């Protein structure tokens, strides 16, 4: 019941004309024994209803931490948000008290994870976990909540939802479990869904099923979807726009067609040239030299400079490259974006 009240408090501040979700200059650091790891170092992006934004990057680039910061589920300590705003319809979530934050998390911004088994409570049935959401946040009766749970499992295409609602999480296969998690995330009709590597643990045929389901649900509900992944194939299939992250920064943001045909940042370009393709044989795999930097020791200037084929002296010096505007709605943090994008 308290959550309903907290939600009303949040709703008071909401401006329906403001952008759905805006992240401005977000900084997150982890204070560890080995020093301060700057996991997110000025991330910017925004999301419109019905849009799919992919955050693409390798492990340690800060993409999952960004999602945790938006959701307000960052482990603190050691993680701290030191700067920036996360605005949902004009309300800065970082300034809300925890109780209202929780309400936003349930009702407006939901998240699904890679590992569905550990995200579900093993000692309760799936139906119980779903029903609880409706009873706590919507004040529904036990019977209504169960009915609603079955409907929801039906929507995520779990066969025989009526009987499976009383099964425990371990009785579902990997793909089905991921569907259950999607059902839980969508239970309270959020308008933003963050999916953190939702299909990485699944086989390709199951991945196709889940991505298809997500796209369908997104369209039905006109949700904004943030897809966090390292898989450039999946991104090409579903994303509208892409933010490529490297060492805690969004190094390139662009529409999906632009970035795949003419990337503007050397990292994005090199990444695209380094993956083998199903529909081609004998292509030469380009190799990105070296390793991503440790977040406790990010190189001066542009973080990518030691691995970059375009790097010049200016790249090795602070300040790091600003967000150059490549085209309307398209940015790249590279001094030489013209050279990167310009050839051919």
């Amino acid at each position, binding site marked *: 019941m308290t959550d309903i009240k907290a939600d009303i408090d949040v709703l008071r501040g909401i401006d329906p004309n403001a952008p759905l979700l805006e992240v401005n200059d977000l900084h997150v650091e982890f204070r560890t024994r080995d020093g301060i790891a700057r996991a997110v170092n000025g991330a910017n992006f925004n999301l419109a209803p019905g849009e799919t934004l992919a955050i693409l990057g390798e492990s340690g680039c800060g993409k999952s931490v960004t999602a945790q910061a938006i959701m307000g589920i960052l482990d603190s300590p050691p993680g701290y948000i030191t700067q920036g705003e996360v605005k949902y319809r004009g309300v800065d979530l970082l300034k809300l008290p925890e109780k209202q934050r929780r309400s936003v998390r349930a009702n407006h911004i939901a998240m699904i994870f890679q590992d569905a088994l550990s995200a579900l409570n093993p000692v309760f049935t799936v139906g119980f976990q779903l029903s609880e959401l409706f009873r706590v946040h919507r004040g529904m009766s036990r019977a209504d909540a169960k009915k609603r749970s079955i409907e929801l499992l039906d929507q995520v295409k779990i066969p025989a939802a009526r009987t499976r609602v009383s099964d425990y999480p371990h009785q579902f296969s990997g793909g089905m479990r991921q569907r259950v998690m999607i059902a839980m995330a969508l239970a309270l009709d959020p308008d933003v869904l963050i999916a953190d590597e939702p299909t990485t643990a699944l086989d390709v045929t199951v991945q196709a099923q889940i991505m298809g389901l997500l796209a369908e649900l997104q369209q039905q509900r006109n949700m904004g979807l943030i897809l966090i992944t390292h898989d450039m194939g999946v991104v090409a299939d579903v994303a509208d726009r892409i933010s490529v992250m490297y060492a805690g920064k969004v190094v390139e943001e662009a529409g999906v067609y632009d970035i795949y045909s003419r990337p503007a940042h050397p990292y994005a370009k090199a990444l695209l040239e380094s993956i083998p393709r199903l529909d081609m044989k004998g292509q030469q795999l*380009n190799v990105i030299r070296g390793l991503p930097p440790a977040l406790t020791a990010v190189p001066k200037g542009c973080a990518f400079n030691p691995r970059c084929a375009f790097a010049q002296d200016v790249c090795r010096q602070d300040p790091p490259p600003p967000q150059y505007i490549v085209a309307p709605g398209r940015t790249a943090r590279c001094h030489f974006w013209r050279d990167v994008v310009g050839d051919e």
Partner: protein
Amino acid sequence: MSDINAVTSAAGPSTQPQMEPKHAGRGKKDKPRSLAADAWADLRRNKIFWVSSILVLIILAMALFPTLFTSADPRDCVLSRQHAGASGSALFGYDFQGCDVYAKTIYGARNSIEVGVVATLLSGVIGLIFGLSTGYFGGWVDAVLSRFIDIILGVPFLLGAIVLAKRFAQDPESNGVLAVTVTLGILGWTTAARIMRSSVITAKNQDYVAAARMLGAGPGRLMLKHILPNSIAPFIVVLTILLGTNIASEATLSFLGVGLKGDAISWGISIAEAGANARTAPEPLVWPSVFLAVTVLAFIMLGDAVRDAFDPKLR
């Protein structure tokens, strides 16, 4: 066009294997940093580790060289000094028999530590054998030996210890040190064996063991080079804790009259003797108790600190 060339030429043609900077980290001195070295770096910064190891060192020094700490003879008892208070020559006063409590406490360390250490080593050997063989061989070996461990574990400790200690201490001449040591050694290994078994099973299923098996490594090599070094840390920690409890158990048995006896000096006997007059003369009871508690605590804290430092999950 030129930029594409720049990318490919910088990365090198794909036939060249050296893609990562070949001499990464060369500027640094190439010092091997083992897990033990990492653990040491960790321990060095741990206050609990320092406090407990200094305490352990002092206690060991007491056990080995009691004369460093006192010049008094613990067996020099004069009834006329019965329950005399603390003085310059006897820091903790005198007990019922008129013996120097301080000297007795210092000299008591040796028997307590000796029983504790030897019993723990004995338990360690038995536990290691049982743990390794049940964990490594599995199957019916595990089934039979594990039930045996369960049976030992099912024996109520005090009852078992009293029966065994009595059985071993037939010789009226002996002071009981051997009997108590063997008793504690035989009863104490089960937890250590179980811990060893589970960590051996974990290590056995690691990929690097499979890799060594694939190379044709025999059971001896697998156990000694791959499984043992990766599974022994929690076992050692259990032993340090066992050391503490063994010292306490010796005191318990001596207190109950089935431990050390005759003219043997130990904290347990001192506590037992002082118990009767504790209300009128608390000092002979308090001091050995304090030493006992601090010793047990020091060993357990040391074990804890070492375990934390060696636990790779915590780094």
